[in-house]
C-alpha cells in the first residue's frame, strides 16, 4: 500500500504543478498512514521532491519517453503503481495530466475524480471535493473502487514544504509501440504560458484594436504575467486563438487575473472564476465583471493602464 504521485516535468525539469501534486500526495499518504512514492520520467535531478515530502523517488529514464505520449506515460504510471501496490495515484491538471488521467484510471480499474480542489474529507469512505458546473458548484465525490486516481486542480491545494530524506530508485519501464506519434511541436519560446503563470493580464474589445496591445504586453512583462484575451478579440483575429480564455478557450486558475476592457460575459467568467484575485478595469460601471471581481477601477484603460505601468515600475524598483 502506498500513494503514488506522477511529478510532471518538461525538458528534464519539474513543472511547478509537480510540487503541488507532491504536497497533496503527502497529505493523502499521511491520512492513509502510508508512504508517498513519486514517479519522475527523464528528470535530471529528482531529489528536489524530498522538500515536499516524497519518501521514495522512482526515477524512470528512457529516451523513448523524451516526448510526452499519453498511452506510454499511462503505461509507465500503471507499471509503477502495480509494482509499488499504490492504491491512490495523483496526477496534475495540466493539459498532459488530463490526457493521461483517464487512461491510467482504466488501466488500474480505478475510480477517477478530476479537478479535485482539496484533501479527502474522509478516507473511509474516500470522499474528495471537485469542481463542477464550470466553477459554479462543487461535487463531493466518493471513489468506491479499491484503486483510485485523483486529478488535482491547478493552484488549489498549494505547495507545502515538508522536508524528508527520500530513497531514490531507478525503475525499468517497458515501453511498447506508440499509437500516436508526435511529428512536431510549435511553441513560443521564452513566453510565460497561461498554464504556468501566477498572473494573467487579459484584455477585451474595450481596447479597440490589435495595435493597442503594447500596453497589455508591457503590463504583463512587469508582472511576469502571461497575456490573454476575451473570445471576441480572438474571433476578430486581433490576438491568437491560444490566448482566448473562457468557457470554450483556455481555463485560468491563477493567483491574479487582471481584466482590461472585458465586460465579463458569463462564458468568460466560467473560464476564469477559479482565479484567486480578480481585478477589472472598465469604463462601464455596469459591466458584469464588477460583480465577479475583487478589485475594480471604473475608468478608461488608455489612461489607467499606462498609469498602472508607471506606478508598478516604481513599486518594483522599491521592492526588488
Amino acid at each position, binding site marked *: 500500500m502506498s500513494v503514488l504521485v506522477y511529478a510532471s516535468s518538461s525538458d528534464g525539469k519539474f513543472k511547478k504543478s509537480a510540487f503541488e501534486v507532491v504536497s497533496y500526495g503527502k497529505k493523502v499518504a499521511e491520512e492513509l498512514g502510508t508512504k508517498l512514492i513519486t514517479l519522475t520520467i527523464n528528470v535530471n535531478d529528482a531529489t528536489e521532491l524530498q522538500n515536499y515530502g516524497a519518501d521514495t523517488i522512482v526515477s524512470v529514464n528512457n529516451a523513448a519517453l523524451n516526448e510526452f505520449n499519453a498511452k506510454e506515460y499511462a503505461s509507465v504510471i500503471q507499471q509503477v503503481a502495480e509494482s509499488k501496490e499504490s492504491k491512490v495515484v495523483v496526477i496534475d491538471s495540466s493539459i498532459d495530466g488530463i490526457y493521461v488521467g483517464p487512461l491510467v484510471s482504466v488501466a488500474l480499474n480505478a475510480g477517477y475524480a478530476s479537478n479535485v480542489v482539496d484533501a479527502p474529507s474522509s478516507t473511509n469512505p474516500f470522499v474528495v471535493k471537485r469542481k463542477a458546473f464550470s466553477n459554479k458548484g462543487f461535487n463531493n465525490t466518493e471513489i468506491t473502487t479499491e484503486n483510485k486516481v485523483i486529478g488535482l486542480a491547478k493552484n488549489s491545494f498549494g505547495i507545502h514544504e515538508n522536508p524528508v530524506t527520500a530513497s531514490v530508485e531507478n525503475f525499468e519501464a517497458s515501453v511498447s509501440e506508440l499509437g500516436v506519434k508526435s511529428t512536431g511541436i*510549435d511553441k513560443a519560446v521564452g513566453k510565460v504560458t497561461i498554464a504556468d503563470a501566477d498572473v494573467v493580464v487579459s484584455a477585451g474589445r474595450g481596447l479597440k484594436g490589435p495595435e493597442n496591445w503594447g500596453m497589455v504586453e508591457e503590463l504583463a512583462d512587469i508582472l511576469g504575467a502571461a497575456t490573454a484575451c476575451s473570445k471576441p478579440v480572438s474571433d476578430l483575429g486581433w490576438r491568437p486563438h*491560444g490566448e482566448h480564455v473562457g468557457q470554450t478557450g483556455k481555463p485560468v486558475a491563477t493567483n491574479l487575473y487582471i481584466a482590461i476592457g472585458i465586460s465579463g460575459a458569463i462564458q468568460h467568467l466560467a473560464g476564469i472564476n477559479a482565479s484567486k484575485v480578480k481585478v477589472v478595469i472598465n469604463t462601464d460601471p455596469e459591466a458584469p465583471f464588477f460583480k465577479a471581481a475583487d*478589485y*475594480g*477601477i471604473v475608468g478608461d484603460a488608455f489612461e489607467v493602464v499606462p498609469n498602472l505601468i508607471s506606478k508598478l515600475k516604481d513599486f518594483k524598483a522599491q*521592492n526588488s
Partner: protein
Amino acid sequence: MKILVCISHVPDTTSKINFTDNDTNFDTNGVQFVINPYDEFVLTRAMWFKEKQGAAITVVNVGSASTESTLRKALAIGADNAIRVNADPKDGMSVAKEIAAVAKDGGYDLILAGKESSDYNGQMVPGMVAALLNYNFVNGCVQMDVDGTSVSATREIDGGSESLQTSLPLVVGGQKGIVEESDLRIPNMRGITMARKKPLSVLESTNPDNATNSVSFEKPAPKGAVKLVDAENIDELINLLHNEAKVI
C-alpha cells in the same frame, strides 16, 4: 467512414446552478438543456467529413428519455441516426463503458467527443472510451484530417501546439479549433423537419458498475462586493494587491 459522435445533454451556460434534496441533486427546475458546447465543435467537424469525404454519422447519448430533444437537435444539424442508451448516468466510467459497448457493436472508425462536458467538466469520458477499446486517442484536438486510415491531427499543449500522426480506429476529444466557432452548424427548418423522420433507437443499458458516487453538492462561498478604487488613485490599487491580497 463510420463516425460516432458522443453528445452530452447539459444545462445552458447561462443557467442558474442550484441544488435540491438537501444538496444531493442538481435542480433541473427552469433549466434549459442544450448540446454540450464542446460536442458542437466535433459534431460540426463530423458534418465536414460527411460532406467532403463521405461519412455516416451516428450520435449517441447515455441518458433518460428527457435527453432525446438534444439528440433530435443533433439530427437536425445533420447526423444520420441517433442512439440513446437508456440509463441514468452515474459517473464518467459507467458512461464510457456504455459508449464503448455501443462503439464495439457498431464498428465505428472514428469516435468524436468534446474534450469535456460543461456540467461535470470531468474530461474523462473520451480517454476512458479509447482505453476500454484500445483505440488510438488524441485529446485537446484542435485540427484533424483523415486520409484513408491515416490521420494527422494537432492538439493544444501548454504554450503552443503539437502535430500528431495516428490512424483509425481513433477516439478524439475535441475543442474549439477543430472547427471555428463561426462555422458551427445551427439547425435550419429543413433539418428540423428531416430530424423527425430520422431513426432514434433506444438501447438497453449494459448496467456497468460505476466507480464513483456523487455524495453532495456545494455552491462556491458567496463573494464579497468588489472594492472600487478611484482611477486617479493607482497607488491604492497597488497597495491593496501587495498588502491585502498579497499577489504582487
